[in-house]
């Protein structure tokens, strides 16, 4: 089976339908599948549920799909950088489900691993635990959280081979490996597409079994939200 597609448009062609649940990797704008997100926008699919740690920023990442009002619901841990998001949420256009970041990560990991639910102490005694089963293990309370899966997962990786084996770069890894496991259809954009045998098998983070489609994005645009630097000391 050929996993490599010529571009994002052809990788998504015929796959996206209104009302689908889409996972989208990245932390802030770091490691987001930017090219795939643009192609998702171009499909015109509406009423999407987007599972993503953040909601992009105004004009970038998932912010693009907020502009076109294609997202009905977000499942996220932090959405502070997006003014449009705030507007749409406050006006009731957009549903929002906040998950603690670690709970979100684990829900996705669990979903991809075939685990329908698990117990965590995160959020016990808070709004997050309301309406959920709480159980005591070894004298401590834990709240039950459900695993998450998606119709389509959009992932960004640094290097990938044509089999879909993936390696990530620095903190651009974040939610991408779990989301790769939790999509019924996982589509990956890779900055460097190589032939089998060119990746060190010991260094592969996501084995190709989790990946159905790959596109090559050799000139990925990357954005920095908070450019912080220090002065060079005089030699």
């Amino acid at each position: 089976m050929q996993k490599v597609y010529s571009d994002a448009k052809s990788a998504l062609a015929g796959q996206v339908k209104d009302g689908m649940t889409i996972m989208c990797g990245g932390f802030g704008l770091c490691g987001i599948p930017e090219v795939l997100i643009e192609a998702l926008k171009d499909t015109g699919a509406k009423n999407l549920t987007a599972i993503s740690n953040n909601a992009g920023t105004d004009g970038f990442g998932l912010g693009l799909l907020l502009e076109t009002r294609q997202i009905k619901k977000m499942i996220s841990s932090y959405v502070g950088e997006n003014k449009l998001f705030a507007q749409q949420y406050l006006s009731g256009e957009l549903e929002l489900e906040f998950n603690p970041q670690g709970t979100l990560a684990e829900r996705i990991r669990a979903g991809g691993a075939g685990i329908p639910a698990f117990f965590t102490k995160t959020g016990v005694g808070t709004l997050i635990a309301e309406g959920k089963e709480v159980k005591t293990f070894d004298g401590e309370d834990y709240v039950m959280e459900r695993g998450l899966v998606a119709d389509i997962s959009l992932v960004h990786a640094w290097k990938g081979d044509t089999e879909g084996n993936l390696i990530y770069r620095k903190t651009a890894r974040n939610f991408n490996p779990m989301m790769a496991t939790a999509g019924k259809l996982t589509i990956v954009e890779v900055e460097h597409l190589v032939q089998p045998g060119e990746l060190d098998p010991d260094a592969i983070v996501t084995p190709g079994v989790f990946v159905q489609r790959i596109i090559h994005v050799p000139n990925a645009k990357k954005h920095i939200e908070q450019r912080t630097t220090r002065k060079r000391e005089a030699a």
Partner: protein
Amino acid sequence: MAWTRDQMAARAAQELRDGFYVNLGIGIPTLVSNYIPQGMKVSLQSENGMLGMGPFPYEGDEDADLINAGKQTITELPTTSYFSSADSFAMIRGGHIDLSILGAMQVAENGDLANWMIPGKMVKGMGGAMDLVAGVKKVVVVMDHVAKAKDGMIEKKLLHRCNLPLTGARVVDMVVTDLGVFTIDKHGSGGMTLVELAPGVTLDDIKANTEASFQVALAKAA
């Protein structure tokens, strides 16, 4: 004189121990990294997937793939490792991180913490805060003792009970404010204890600005 932001950070840094793995929140907690004592090895964890966080990069060396949880560009160290968000929170929730230093809107005398939402206002989300306070071995809050509104009114932040939605129940071990330091017996019934005053701050100053009940056990004269 009350402590400055930097002095609060320096006081919080006294809770660091050699070999600690530490997660620092945004704001004053970030400043704590400037006060790691010489010769002490402390590894900073960033919940977006990095252990062994280095300083900001030199101008021109910024890397969009290398950021901290505040989305600021940073650098790596020879000790650095990268991992997924799931592994990151396995460290946090699994009790492998020694110390979390973070900011707060309110802290209650039983250790309840509120720092993520004000009902009726736009909520940005809890990010990793709920996981951090639930899982990290020791939780230190660094915050101004009271909130000052624009009209000059003050709102107390150390309370009998938090009236904002909680980030965690019975999770705070210590509070460092601009006026002093409190410890909290979060698992027992010992409540809150004032253990230190900022220079020039009196017990009466603390009482006037604190709703929470607290005992006094000052280790040293201010």
